[in-house]
Structure formats: structure tokens, C-alpha cells
């Protein structure tokens, strides 16, 4: 048995394949546990974690994507708010909306509201059905497919492209930019090179779109995006709208793709459950919530204590990194009965925090839910039986699955499925 006290969660190569025993080890230490390495405090309690997510006054999101790396400043005094704000320039990772605090976060998030309106979501869902079929057509004759690269990734990419109003003639180019998931967020192998970041290519496209629509407004979604103002009536810089748009691709892809793979993994292994869902499609909604609870694609996120405070039984100094263990919060026995069992009938499955809580909770959650529903509906419609491809993953008693080598992201790197086309 592994000695978890010696494990560095942020570089251990084996944990990503099976992180739950480690989270259970942390939970046994209380709602919050101080890790021996890097001064990080890990939160595993549902109630404690939810309260922190909802307390942006005390806890900054500055390090949400930066994780446990040393801060670019030395925390001083009882309140480090000003230090945080004066150390954002220069590093892309501190300029994403997910890392902003109020009032700047509030202004920026306001720009996104029109995109995620019910009207826009309904239009977008129509596109999803068509898109799903087009992608399935590409491999329906083959009898097998790899769901991450052949379906979920192009699906998620083009759904966001459609949401943002990217013209259809550019969809092919967008798909090519994201032809693989590329470098994983929070890699246990260390940070990736910024020049490999596909989001910079996306940003360049959007700078072009926004400049064009501001010069030549027309009746389309990109014009709405280009002309959306901050709550105070001022027009945002083109670059800011472009990087926000690019961010939506990152946010809308990795997580949705991983959860889609998790869902098919569960259904490929549990054929009786698959049959039950096929016969009663109304179960798909709660199945999706339970999959999100059990296999949240973001297993951990981060917050930075701005002031002196307490979490659980621990005294927290300003500048302390908190690791919000979403994968552990979602299996807190105080919140979820028999938490390690997948129960499609679980009454409170949707209480999970896979989309976070508070001001930074995933604005695209309704979109992700629709995507996952359309994915299952169309795969069920077009394929009579979906199973694990044993030629790629081995026999039922000896499977070989690989997970993203990350301390943030949880999910299969690839999942090969075999199927019989529907009659």
C-alpha cells in the first residue's frame, strides 16, 4: 500500500489513474487538511467547500488556474487584495475571467450573459442535433470509434463556435485548431509551453470578427457580441472580447469532452444500465447528473486566502493556497448517502459541485447539460449496442484505461467503443 503522506499530489504520476483513495486519505484528516508539500490546504468537505466557493470576499480566484505554484509576490500584511491586483499583468493565467475577482469579474461576466440566454441556448441546441448526426455519419460504417477525438472534441468545439456565431465556413478551421486535446491543464509533468496554446489562434480569429462587426454591424450573434457593453455603458477593448471568447473554447471543451467519455465508459461497462436508459430516456437527465457527481471533469480547483481566516479547524494566513477538491466534495458521505456507488436514481445527484458554486460557477452548465443529453440521445438512436472495444482496452476482467496526467482534470485520454449500427 502506498504511503500517501509521502506523495506529492501535484507531481505523482500514478494518482491521476485512481485519485479517490488519496482524497479519502485527506478526508480522514477533517474538512480541511494541510499538505506537507507546497503549503497547500486541501478542502474535501461539501459544506466547507461550498461556503468557500460562495465567499469571494475572503477567497480570491487569482490562482484558480495557477494552482500550487509559488506566487509572483510575497504576501504582506492582513489583506493581500492590492498585491493580487497589482500582479496580474504579463501572465495570461491571471487574465482569464475564471481568475478575476469582483468588481472586474462582475463587469466581464456581464458581457457573457447574452450568449447564455435561453433564446440563444434553444437555437444552439438545434445546431447540436444536426452536428451530432454529421459526426456520427463519419464513422457509423466502421463499427467502432474513439469517442474523445472522433466525436466529443469536435462536437464541443463546434457547439461553442456556433454559440459565438462563428460563420460555418470557418468551422473546419476551428476543428483543425483543436484536432487533439493537446496539453492538459494542471499537468503532473509540469507547465506546458505557452506558444503551444491553441487559444491564441482562436483569439486572433475573434479580433478579426469583432473589428469587422464593429465596423460593419449586421444581424448576427457576432455583432451582438461585438457591441455588448459593460454595465457602465462603456465598450470593451476588442482584445478583451477576443480573449473572453477564446476562453469559452477552453472552458467548453476539456470538461464536456471528459464527461462525455466518462458517461460512455459507465454505459459501456454496465450494459444493463445502458439498456434501462435506452428504454426510459427520461432517466438520461439524472444519469448525467450522477455521472457529473462521480466523475467530475475538474477534480480540483484553487482559491487564495486574501485575509486571515479559519477553514475547518485550521488557521489560514493571507496568501495560503486552498485546493478545492471537487471530486471529494462530490463524495462527501455527509451529503451523499453511499457516496462511492453510482446510483442513477439518486435523489440529490444534482447537488454535486462539478460546475462549482458561487460567482465563478460554470456559466455554460446549461449548455453542457444539453450537449451531454444530445450526445446520449443520438448515440442511442444510431447505435443498437455500445460496448467497450476489447481490441483496444482488453477483456472485461483486465481492462487498460489511461487517464489525463493532471492534478486538475479527471478523465480518460481515449475511449474506444464498439457498436452495431441501429437497424
Amino acid at each position, binding site marked *: 500500500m502506498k504511503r500517501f503522506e509521502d506523495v506529492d499530489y501535484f507531481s505523482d504520476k500514478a494518482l491521476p489513474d485512481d485519485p479517490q483513495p488519496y482524497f479519502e486519505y485527506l478526508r480522514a484528516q477533517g474538512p480541511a487538511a494541510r499538505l506537507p508539500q507546497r503549503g497547500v490546504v486541501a478542502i474535501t468537505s461539501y459544506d466547507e467547500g461550498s461556503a468557500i466557493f460562495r465567499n469571494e470576499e475572503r477567497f480570491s480566484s487569482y490562482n484558480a488556474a495557477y494552482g500550487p505554484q509559488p506566487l509572483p509576490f510575497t504576501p504582506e500584511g492582513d489583506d493581500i487584495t492590492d498585491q493580487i491586483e497589482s500582479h496580474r499583468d504579463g501572465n495570461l493565467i491571471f487574465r482569464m475571467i475564471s481568475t478575476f475577482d469582483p468588481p472586474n469579474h462582475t463587469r466581464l461576466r456581464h458581457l457573457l450573459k447574452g450568449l447564455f440566454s435561453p433564446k440563444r441556448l434553444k437555437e444552439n441546441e438545434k445546431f447540436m442535433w444536426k452536428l451530432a448526426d454529421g459526426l456520427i455519419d463519419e464513422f457509423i460504417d466502421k463499427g467502432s470509434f474513439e469517442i474523445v477525438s472522433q466525436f466529443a472534441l469536435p462536437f464541443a468545439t463546434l457547439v461553442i463556435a456556433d454559440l459565438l456565431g462563428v460563420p460555418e465556413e470557418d468551422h473546419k478551421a476551428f476543428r483543425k485548431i483543436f484536432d487533439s486535446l493537446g496539453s492538459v491543464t494542471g499537468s503532473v509533468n509540469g507547465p506546458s509551453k505557452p506558444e503551444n496554446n491553441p487559444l491564441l489562434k482562436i483569439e486572433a480569429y475573434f479580433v478579426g470578427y469583432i473589428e469587422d462587426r464593429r465596423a460593419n454591424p449586421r444581424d448576427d450573434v457576432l455583432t451582438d457580441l461585438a457591441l455588448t457593453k459593460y454595465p457602465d455603458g462603456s465598450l470593451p477593448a476588442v482584445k478583451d472580447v477576443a480573449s473572453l471568447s477564446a476562453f469559452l473554447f477552453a472552458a467548453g471543451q476539456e470538461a464536456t469532452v471528459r464527461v462525455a467519455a466518462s458517461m460512455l465508459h459507465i454505459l459501456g461497462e454496465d450494459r444493463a444500465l445502458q439498456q434501462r436508459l435506452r428504454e426510459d430516456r427520461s432517466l438520461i437527465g439524472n444519469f448525467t447528473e450522477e455521472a457529473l457527481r462521480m466523475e467530475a471533469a475538474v477534480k480540483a480547483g484553487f482559491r487564495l486566502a486574501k485575509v486571515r481566516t479559519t477553514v475547518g479547524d485550521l488557521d489560514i494566513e493571507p496568501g495560503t493556497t486552498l485546493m478545492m477538491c471537487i471530486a471529494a466534495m462530490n463524495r462527501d458521505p455527509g451529503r451523499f448517502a453511499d457516496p462511492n456507488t453510482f446510483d442513477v436514481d439518486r435523489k440529490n445527484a444534482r447537488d454535486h459541485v462539478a460546475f462549482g458554486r458561487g460567482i465563478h460557477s460554470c456559466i455554460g*452548465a446549461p449548455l453542457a447539460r444539453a450537449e451531454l443529453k444530445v450526445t446520449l440521445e443520438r448515440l442511442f438512436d444510431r447505435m443498437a449496442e455500445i460496448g467497450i472495444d476489447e481490441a483496444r482496452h482488453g477483456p472485461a476482467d483486465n481492462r487498460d484505461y489511461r487517464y489525463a496526467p493532471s492534478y486538475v482534470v479527471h478523465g480518460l485520454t481515449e475511449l474506444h467503443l464498439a457498436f452495431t449500427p441501429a437497424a
Partner: protein
Amino acid sequence: MQITYIESDGTAHTVEAKSGWSVMENAVKNGVPGILAECGGSATCGTCRIYVGPDWQARMAAPTPDELALLEYVEEERSDARLSCQIGMNEQLDGLTVHMPERQYS
């Protein structure tokens, strides 16, 4: 200033409310159960619904088209429903009493 939130089973929660916070924020930051607010106040999730009587509605700004569209999208059927994240707390609303649905999602 106070707000009272009443659960569907009649349990009441009265909080000392802060001006400038929305009715949703005053609930979640005081630990009132029954207001989920999954989207954190962006009017995109419909999980902070409350029911507000006509006397109190008269003292609030009417719902915007966005708020109404979302209430329709989440299939809310009651005409006195509001999104608590879209109602700013102020002195005119001191003593506000609101009711909460049994569940914020189906």
C-alpha cells in the same frame, strides 16, 4: 433590514440583510437552504427562484425580459415567481417575506 425566507414546508429563516446584495446573495451568504443559485447570479440557471406577493412586487423593479425568458425556460408556472438574484436589496424592501419552491430543479 431583514428578509424572511420561507421554505415549502413552512420553515422560516430571517436574516439581517445587507443593502447592495441581491435577495439571492443575502440568502446564500447567510446559509439559508433552498436557494441554490448554481450560476452565481448571472440569471442563466433559474435555481434561485422565489415567490413574492403583489404588495412586495409593487415595491420592486418589474422583471426584465431576460428574467421572464429564463423563468419560462425552466418551466416555472407560477406568475408570482422571481429570480432572487435579480432583486437588489434596499431599504424599501425592509421586512421582505418571500417563499421558496420545494425544489429548484425538476
